[in-house]
């Protein structure tokens, strides 16, 4: 694997606040890599260190094999798409895109063709002579992208560039970004707090929390096999319940939650003691579908949330008592369960994930 960006043991603190705490990761050349996490998790700081606006207190940052210590932003083979795009308000779209090439002293004729190509790539050919104030949010976003890509960076850094757009436009731009990334083949490092965005576009995702990386993997692996309780809770809709791990044998854990006892499969290295169980909404089965499941219990429907394509039921397991949310796809036609109805609840032992509570 050709590596474009590599961080080794990078730490950055602002005063007493450790923004980035000893993180290491490598981004494959030509891949779409996302840093995902809640605000304040250190993802933006990591991006700013990569672009050269912040400097690591400790650790090493290499881009295309070269150590970036002491290299200013204007000499790095990276370009940044800013959160609010940071277009120069006194320049037209074309002038904005040309700026980076002019700073590089690229010959005029070449600038003209490259600016034209870049604007065409993002579908803004006709808007070249407009000023940012005459462009919509989505169009400004595209200009910012063209302005960064026209420099032909080894690595393109994107700092929540879709955050300021409305939902529909955001979905459209996600597909667009992915298409552009495939077309130009540049390495993208994408910072976002939106798990859906990261899942749709990324080849690999690093989930960050409190300055540390919780898990790095493909979107599917992160969704199916979250490595920590935080990842399980942050990505997807998940029931998380405190349990006591009573015994672990043969890769299976026997757990207890109040009076409720069940088995969790594929638990890995876990010891008896306090822990948490995570169970995706859509893996909880109700009614007839529950009867064939290895874990089965009686429950009462507390609430029904109808959201069109899916229905969510809030159910209370009588043993426990434990509150769970079950999500079923709604095919249309079938009647919904009523509030207060008795229903069987069940799930696959392998659907649940068991996490040991950290000591202290």
């Amino acid at each position: 694997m050709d590596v474009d960006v590599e961080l080794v043991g990078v730490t950055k603190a602002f005063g007493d606040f450790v923004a980035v705490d000893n993180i290491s990761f490598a981004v494959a050349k030509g891949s779409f890599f996302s840093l995902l996490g809640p605000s304040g998790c250190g993802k933006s700081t990591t991006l700013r260190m990569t672009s050269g606006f912040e400097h690591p207190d400790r650790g090493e940052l290499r881009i295309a094999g070269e150590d970036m210590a002491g290299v200013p932003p204007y000499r790095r083979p990276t370009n940044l798409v800013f959160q609010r795009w940071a277009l120069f308000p006194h320049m037209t779209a074309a002038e904005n895109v040309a700026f980076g090439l002019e700073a590089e002293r690229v010959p005029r004729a070449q600038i003209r063709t490259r600016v034209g190509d870049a604007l065409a790539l993002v579908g803004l050919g006709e808007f070249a002579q407009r000023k940012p104030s005459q462009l919509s949010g989505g169009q400004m976003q595209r200009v910012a992208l063209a302005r960064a890509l026209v420099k032909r960076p080894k690595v393109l850094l994107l700092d929540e560039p879709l955050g300021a757009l409305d939902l529909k436009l955001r979905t459209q731009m996600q597909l667009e970004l992915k298409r552009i990334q495939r077309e130009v083949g540049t390495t993208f490092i994408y910072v976002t707090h939106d798990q859906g965005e990261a899942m749709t576009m990324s080849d690999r995702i690093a989930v960050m929390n409190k300055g540390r990386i919780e898990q790095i993997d493909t979107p599917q692996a992160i969704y199916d096999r979250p490595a920590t309780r935080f990842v399980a809770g942050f990505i997807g809709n998940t029931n998380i319940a405190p349990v006591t791990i009573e015994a672990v044998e043969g890769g299976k854990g026997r757990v207890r939650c109040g009076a409720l006892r069940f088995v969790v499969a594929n638990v890995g290295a876990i010891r008896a003691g306090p822990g948490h169980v995570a169970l995706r909404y859509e893996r909880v089965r109700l009614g007839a579908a529950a009867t064939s499941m290895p874990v089965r219990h009686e429950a009462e429907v507390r609430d029904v949330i109808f959201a069109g394509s899916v229905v969510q039921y809030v159910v209370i397991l009588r043993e426990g008592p434990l509150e769970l949310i079950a999500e079923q796809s709604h095919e249309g036609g079938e009647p919904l369960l009523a509030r207060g109805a008795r229903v069987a609840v069940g799930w696959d032992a392998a659907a649940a994930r068991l996490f040991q509570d950290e000591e202290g």
Partner: protein
Amino acid sequence: MSATLSAPVPAARRIRRRWLSPLLLLLPTLLVMAYAFIAPLATFFEYSFYRFRRGRLEQVFTLDTYSRFLFDDYYHLIIYDTLRMAALVTVLSLVIGYPLAYALHRITRPSIQRFLGLLIFTPILVSVVVRSYGWIILLSDQGPVNWLLLRLGIIAEPVALVFNLFGVVISLTHVFLPFVVFPIFTSLQRIEPELKEAAEDLGAGWWTTFRRVTFPLSLPGVVAGAQISFTLALGAFVTPAMLGGGRVFVLPLQVYNATSEINWPVAAVGGMVLLIISTIAVAGFNRALKYSEVR
């Protein structure tokens, strides 16, 4: 009861209501302006058409004074000197004020920023007469500036720094500096820091970033500062009177001299010319301001 409440308010009354409160708020200002500005101006205007002959005012209509201002070289020179002085002061305050504003903008420690801001503000705190005497002492033949230049061997004998245009320009620049620094500072502060980062990220060094991003975006402040210092310099009286040594004969001085000779028509026309120049300057700067702002 409810019928009267929901009845639509007549359009005329609605309009009257919308205009009434702003009008009431403006009234005191309008009254003061009418009494202290418009009325004297009208009187002034009337006097500008009277004739002044052999030290006496005659209430005879004439355009004579106006034609003298238009065609007489003596008045041309006064107008030219006034404009030149104002232009020099404006340019010099911009040249000194811009770096100051930039430094103030770049300082991130609030305490130092406040202190420096206060320092830049000090010229306004000192009375114009005191400040002028200060400059006379500083710039005189035996003053510290000449002494230093002599000691450093830059000059062989004292140079005339005061009682000429140089002294006036230096002193006026000193006073107008805050009026130039603060508008520029404000427009620098208003530039999003991300824009500079974006320029840097796109490969621009400090100079290119300044030339292509920071400076163009600070132009509204530059134009506003220039407007204030130019119009203030046009009307400056005490400083040219005290530091000009009779060699800087600008319009306000000429108006003053004319009034002391009770030559009302010349004083009135001088005042009119000054007003016209100021109006043209303000209009010009306003137009420049419109173009310098990002649309």
